[in-house]
């Protein structure tokens, strides 16, 4: 019996509460140590399953020994493995970055670990109510993390996120209730099994369930009319938390979409063409994110809107619905996590060193902080999709999928999105290289930035380059995940 699936979730959760108890020991920086060790252990456990998962196996784990329709079961398959690996990788990057900023903050590391274990729970569980609970755990941790700095605007952003997300999660709970009333089970596979009969009996109830779920997940992943919390929360949160939000929490919503929609309505019911809905909403998200980013004058806000833009790309990839499109979308999820986390970290270092966060104030910053500007440029080239970097590969896959399915107009809109993203990123880049004299903010004492932050950014840049040059390294994992989605 392989206990790895539950241990992956519980070890960070265990660590989250252990960090508080380090207060009573004499270990220096105990909380950081605990966080780091827990995440590494989880990652090792996950990788220990790697070879069997990548060969197509599925590892199922029944909590408490109760079998699937009765008890809660966890399952690791290609898709879960992909997302869990992403979560742990980015989680480690976030923890490393935080080491220099939050030095004796037990509460911070505790919340970070809770959020990460919640995301791991989301991607591993096969029980739909359990999914809801894990989402709430992540959400509560992230509300607190966003308002961690207690600044006026952060609290406002956190409250906005709370109200918006929770009002939609109530709807998700309602959807679960209806599903439970119809099927009498909460196990995803059992529900999926019964879905065709439900659909034949009453298609309208299925539409209601789908819409409720789409709104709930749409809020999490920043889909078009529900995106309004993203710019505020992303730009006001502390830097590592921005990375967490953009890199992982948005992706958790996308995971839920991929898992639940395709499991319930994927192969059997093309009458209810969820792909089309996702495609149109994705295009709207793409254009809105790109255009709004063009109009921003704050770096972190621009990055937040850029996240919306890239989420639009991913949604289009999902909305195309072929295997190639899904591969592209999943690959873009991975790439965007790496790139956007790196970009937020970069911007965080620049902002915390100079005290400026407006683009116009940052003119000529390259003279003051060369290495960070270079990293920022490389990462933004990656997110635009300039070739030797990873963003190019995934965007290419998505565009290829649109052309293969002969949706040429979609490809044209995608191109427009790429151009807009180039437009706003080059706007930032050129201001970095301005010849003007650069003076740091006088009313601001720069926070010393240690080697941990720099190293994290460099590692992320390197990852972008390596994935861009050798995308075949990850091809197995990504295509397997796409195949799992389409089963």
């Amino acid at each position, binding site marked *: 019996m392989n206990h790895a699936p539950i241990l992956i979730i519980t070890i960070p959760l265990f660590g989250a509460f252990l960090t508080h108890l380090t207060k009573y020991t004499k270990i220096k920086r105990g909380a950081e140590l605990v966080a780091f060790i827990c995440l590494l252990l989880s990652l090792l456990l996950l990788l220990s399953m790697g070879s069997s998962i990548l060969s197509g196996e599925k590892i199922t784990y029944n909590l408490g020994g109760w079998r699937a329709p009765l008890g809660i079961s966890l399952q690791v398959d290609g898709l879960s493995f992909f997302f869990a690996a992403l979560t742990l990788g980015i989680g480690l990057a976030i923890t490393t970055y935080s080491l220099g900023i939050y030095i004796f903050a037990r509460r911070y590391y505790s919340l970070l670990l809770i959020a990460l274990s919640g995301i791991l729970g989301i991607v591993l569980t096969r029980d739909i109510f359990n999914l809801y609970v894990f989402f709430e755990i992540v959400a509560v941790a992230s509300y607190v993390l966003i308002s961690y700095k207690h600044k*006026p605007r952060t609290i406002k952003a956190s409250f906005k996120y*709370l109200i918006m997300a929770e009002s939609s999660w109530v709807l998700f709970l309602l959807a679960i209730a209806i599903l439970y009333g119809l099927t009498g089970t909460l196990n995803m596979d059992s529900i999926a099994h019964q879905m065709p009969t439900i659909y034949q009996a009453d298609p309208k109830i299925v539409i209601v369930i789908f819409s409720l779920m789409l709104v709930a997940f749409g809020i999490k992943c920043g889909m078009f009319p529900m995106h309004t919390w993203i710019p505020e929360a992303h730009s006001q949160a502390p830097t590592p938390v921005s990375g967490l939000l953009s890199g992982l929490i948005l992706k958790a919503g996308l995971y839920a979409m991929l898992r639940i929609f395709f499991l319930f309505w994927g192969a059997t019911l093309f009458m209810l063409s969820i792909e089309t809905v996702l495609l149109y909403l994705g295009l709207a998200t793409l254009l809105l994110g790109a255009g709004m980013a063009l109009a921003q004058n704050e770096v972190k806000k621009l990055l937040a809107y850029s996240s919306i833009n890239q989420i639009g790309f991913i949604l289009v990839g999902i909305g195309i619905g072929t295997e190639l499109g899904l591969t592209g979308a999943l690959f873009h999820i991975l790439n965007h996590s790496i790139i956007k986390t790196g970009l937020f970290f970069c911007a965080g270092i620049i902002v915390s060193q100079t005290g400026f966060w407006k683009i116009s104030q940052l003119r000529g910053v390259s003279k003051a902080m060369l290495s960070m500007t270079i990293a920022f440029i490389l990462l933004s080239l990656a997110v635009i999709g300039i070739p030797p970097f990873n963003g190019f590969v995934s965007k290419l896959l998505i565009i290829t999928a649109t052309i293969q399915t002969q949706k040429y107009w979609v490809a044209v809109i995608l191109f427009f999105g790429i151009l807009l993203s180039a437009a706003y990123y080059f706007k930032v880049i050129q201001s970095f290289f301005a010849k003007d004299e650069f003076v740091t903010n006088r009313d601001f004492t720069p926070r010393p930035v240690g080697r941990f932050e720099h190293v994290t950014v460099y590692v992320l840049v390197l990852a972008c380059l390596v994935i861009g040059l050798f995308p075949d390294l990850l091809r197995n994992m990504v295509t397997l995940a796409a195949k799992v989605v389409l089963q």
Partner: protein
Amino acid sequence: MTIINGLTIGIITILIGIYGILTKRNLIKMVMCLYIMNSSVILFFISLGYRSGAQAAIVENGDQLMVDPLPQALMLTSIVIGLVITSLGLALAIKIYKEHSTINTKRLIEK
């Protein structure tokens, strides 16, 4: 089965909660409406497990008609989550009042 049962009341109170959250400009009232929504979904879910004439799901003397225990167990979790969310929302509302000295959403736009 009458029209007025847990399910319909649940749906109606959800709509009341939605109405409140859309129209009230006071942050504390918004948190209250959120809690109303949450509670009404809980009522809805619990009512799903209700069977007419059944007893509480405690096994005492052998076979008898019981209500579905699973929704009750699940909704306990939901109640906890609702508690956490409400307390967090209220705490944030207090903080917003201290920082911005207003809890009106319209006045908070500019700040």
